């Protein structure tokens, strides 16, 4: 299984040179195995799709939720404009509007010139919540997780490895933070024992104090979460757009000291590729 990090920036795309090392583009990760591809979220990082050689008749995009930084790239996704191309979009179910209706709020004027209905590709929508399903050879489990608005995390099982994706997640939301009992931990079942957990780590713990309820995690909470879920590695991502490369380097120098004994971690960088067996 190959995991390509196409966009690891949180909230909105940056453009200044000071953020280029960790990356400017918003949430998008590609999972490739046996020539089959899954695209997780469609932030501006989906532009990396154009640089890969992929010509399958079917492409699948799995959306964790519909906040702008996770769907911004949809309008510029080249397979949308290829007749006969099958595009499957999977996203969280709600009890009110359909996934198609919610997405068309962005993919229609005045926000976007092309209507969803006018796209030449064959578009399919799949609404999911707490579910288990298969896409090609991938087995996928989705669970609602804590983040404002309907949001799901994904556990992707390939031939030999498990990759869990939760770019926006605030499991510590509450008066006393995370409840350290697996039954009371958001997303525990999809994160448990994952080979790699891709997780929200937008803030330092000091910043988090003023941003509780915004739907994101502190780096420390993300590490604690990974440890409670016994994941083998955690990829810390969804970097705050206000954090420059220098600031992130300094923040993670400090984290290195306090994370002693916790799960092995890496800081997500746009463009990085990770190979799993």
């Amino acid at each position, binding site marked *: 299984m190959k995991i390509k990090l196409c966009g690891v920036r949180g909230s909105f795309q940056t453009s200044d040179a000071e953020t280029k090392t960790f990356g400017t583009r918003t949430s998008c990760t590609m999972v490739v195995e046996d020539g089959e591809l899954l695209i997780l979220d469609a932030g501006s990082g989906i532009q990396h799709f154009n640089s890969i050689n992929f010509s399958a008749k079917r492409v699948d995009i799995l959306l964790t939720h519909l906040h702008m930084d996770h769907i911004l790239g949809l309008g510029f996704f080249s397979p949308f404009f290829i007749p006969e191309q099958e595009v499957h979009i999977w996203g*969280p*179910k*709600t*009890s009110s509007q359909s996934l198609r209706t919610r997405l068309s709020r962005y993919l229609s004027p005045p926000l976007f010139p092309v209507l969803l209905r006018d796209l030449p590709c064959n578009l399919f929508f799949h609404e999911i*919540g*707490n579910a288990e399903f298969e896409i090609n050879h991938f087995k996928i489990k989705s669970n*609602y*997780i*804590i983040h404002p608005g*309907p949001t799901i995390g994904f556990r992707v099982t390939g031939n030999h490895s498990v990759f869990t994706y939760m770019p926006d997640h605030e499991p510590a*939301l*509450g*008066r*006393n933070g995370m*409840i350290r009992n*697996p*039954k*009371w*931990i*958001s*997303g*525990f*079942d999809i994160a448990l024992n994952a080979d790699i957990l891709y997780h929200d780590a937008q803030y330092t713990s000091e910043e988090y104090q003023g941003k509780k309820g915004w739907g994101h995690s502190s780096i420390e909470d993300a590490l604690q979460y990974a440890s409670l879920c016994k994941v083998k590695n955690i990829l810390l991502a969804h970097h705050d757009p206000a954090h420059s490369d220098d600031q992130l380097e300094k923040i993670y120098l400090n984290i290195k000291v306090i994370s002693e004994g916790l799960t092995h971690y890496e800081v997500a960088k746009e463009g990085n590729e990770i190979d799993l067996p």
Partner: protein
Amino acid sequence: MPAYGIEIILSRQLADSLTMPVFITDTVGNLIFYNTPAEETLGQRFEDTGEMPVDVWSVIFKPVDEFAKPIVPGDLPLVKTLTNRLPYHKTFWIKSLQGQLEKIELTSYPIISKENEFLGAVAIFWKIKENEN
């Protein structure tokens, strides 16, 4: 056992932040969480008891009406919520740990997920002084 849905987890986190006693049950009435103010009413600590089966915790309270007549379980808001998956409210009296009758207002409501799945119920109550209302 799988983790609870986020609707239950967030209900507990909210209950943990309130001064009113809150009980959270699963779909059949097993008590899966009660907050610190509820501990005073129940006379037990969640830290000590953990979750409690419905037949254990339901007998702790002895609810009565204004004539001190026992209220049958089927007339209690939480039981009705578990049966009908609807919110209910009732004023009644319970015997305190000191043996005194205390007037309470209790509201119960179902927890129904975005997928329309019934996940459990919440009961929240207020002690009312006799000269109130």
